């Protein structure tokens, strides 16, 4: 071999070292995960029996409860109504969140406020984002009571954090050429925003907000499990008796949840494809 080939060969990167360390770490994690305390393996055996009961009862859907008729019940008591209520709360929460996220997005965008200030905006958004939604719902329930406003505000505040970051990214990645042109015709700052920024980012913003609505809807369903209202509430009530859960009720609620989430998932995917 000539000398150049020899030196290149000697200097070749030894990737196997990094790979080995990585594999050891993963194995370590796996071992740690399963040898920890408290995994109660014999309850798995009991689960088998319970599973059978669950499957039998869960598919026995109480249609009266579902639609809200019979036995003196009205539409407002039915699960379908709860479904609509959950969708409505999510809709308003996401809208409020999206509208408020816009100024935050501008504040966190490097191209708008400069490198220093955008860090401030980013940090605020991170803090809002990392705060667990469920805790937020929990706090608001204690404060505002069990009204739909709790869910709306929880979703709204959380969405500000999530959407604010995506909006800022959109603004930073936007095509700037039209801004240059607007500068050259003498547009002022507001006009540049209206004609240069907004038309360029609007489709992305709408798409992202729709996706957020989708995710928020799923979160809204579980807020009921901590008592904040919406469709999760009947489910948590059905499951409170852990010795003998009311599987029919649970099944009815689950059916509604599954239908609602799948339909919205499909619709939002369709709309988002049409936007691009």
């Amino acid at each position: 071999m000539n000398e150049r080939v020899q030196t290149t060969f000697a200097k070749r990167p030894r990737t196997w070292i990094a790979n080995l360390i990585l594999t050891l770490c993963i194995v370590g994690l796996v071992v740690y995960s399963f040898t920890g305390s408290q995994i109660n393996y014999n309850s798995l055996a009991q689960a088998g029996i319970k599973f059978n009961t669950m499957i039998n009862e869960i598919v026995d859907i109480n249609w009266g409860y579902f639609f809200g008729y019979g036995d003196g019940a009205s539409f407002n008591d039915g699960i379908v109504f709860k479904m609509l209520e959950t969708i409505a709360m999510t809709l308003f929460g996401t809208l409020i969140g999206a509208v408020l996220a816009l100024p935050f997005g501008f504040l966190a965008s490097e191209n708008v406020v400069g490198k220093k200030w955008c860090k401030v905006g980013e940090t605020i958004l991170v803090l809002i984002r990392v705060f667990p939604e469920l805790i937020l719902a929990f706090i608001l329930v204690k404060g505002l009571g069990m009204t739909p406003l709790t869910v709306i505000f929880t979703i709204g505040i959380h969405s500000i954090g999530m959407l604010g970051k995506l909006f800022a990214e959109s603004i930073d990645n936007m095509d700037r050429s039209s801004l240059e042109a607007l500068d050259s015709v003498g547009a002022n700052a507001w006009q540049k925003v209206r004609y240069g920024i907004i038309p360029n980012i609007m489709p992305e913003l709408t798409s992202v907000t729709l996706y957020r609505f989708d995710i928020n809807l799923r979160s809204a369903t579980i807020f009921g499990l901590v008592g904040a209202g919406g469709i999760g509430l009947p489910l948590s009530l059905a499951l409170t008796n852990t010795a003998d859960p009311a599987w029919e009720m649970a099944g009815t609620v689950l059916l509604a949840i599954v239908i609602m989430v799948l339909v919205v998932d499909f619709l939002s995917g369709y709309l988002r494809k049409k936007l691009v």
Partner: protein
Amino acid sequence: MIRFIDVVKTYPNGVQALKGVNLTINDGEFVAIIGLSGAGKSTLLRSINKMHSITSGQVLVDDVDVGQLKGKQLRMLRRSIGMIFQSFNLVKRMSVFNNVLTGRVAYHPTFKTLFGIFPKEDKILALESLDTMGILEKAFTRADQLSGGQQQRVALARSLAQKPKVILADEPVASLDPITTVQVMNDFTKVNRDFGITIVANMHHVDLALKYAKRIIGIRDGVVVFDGPSSEINDDILVQIYGRSLAHNEILGVE
């Protein structure tokens, strides 16, 4: 009338883009600026509407010192100067019609323009500009659905809608194929001849510049090394401007 008096532009990193430029461009002229990339063509062009500011000297547009202008006065200057860019710089998702209308935003109060309210005369003017460029039928198509040549014509229509006295063009045909290039250069000629608008254009292709512009300004390293009618250009002068004979990508090969 555009005048450059001892204009110097030094960038913060020490590079001197313009080293004492003196020029006068009269109304109605068709001027092409040629030179190597980085010779100072873009800086020269953009200091006319203060898209680039200069370090010393004066740039006078109709006896107004551009360097002193700020804020609203600067915008009022810019609204009467059209600018054409190499990458067209249209708002891609808006219709052609709305793109042309953006040329009028500096003529109206912010409040109205924010809501997209333009007077009827402006809308008719926009459509007329499109008609002059021969693309009236594309008025309500989305801008990014047009070909490159058509987009540049929309940009020209946008400038026309400003009712400008001058149109600055920064390598307007560099992104276009040879046939479309000729069409767009013909459009520039039409605008210059029929409307009396001064055209100052940076050009990459020398033969194109010679064919369409009556006056050539050659820049090398921030200094004007040639300023005269295109008929006077010969190979020796070109070597002076480019420092070498022309590369074959600097000749388009148009007849």
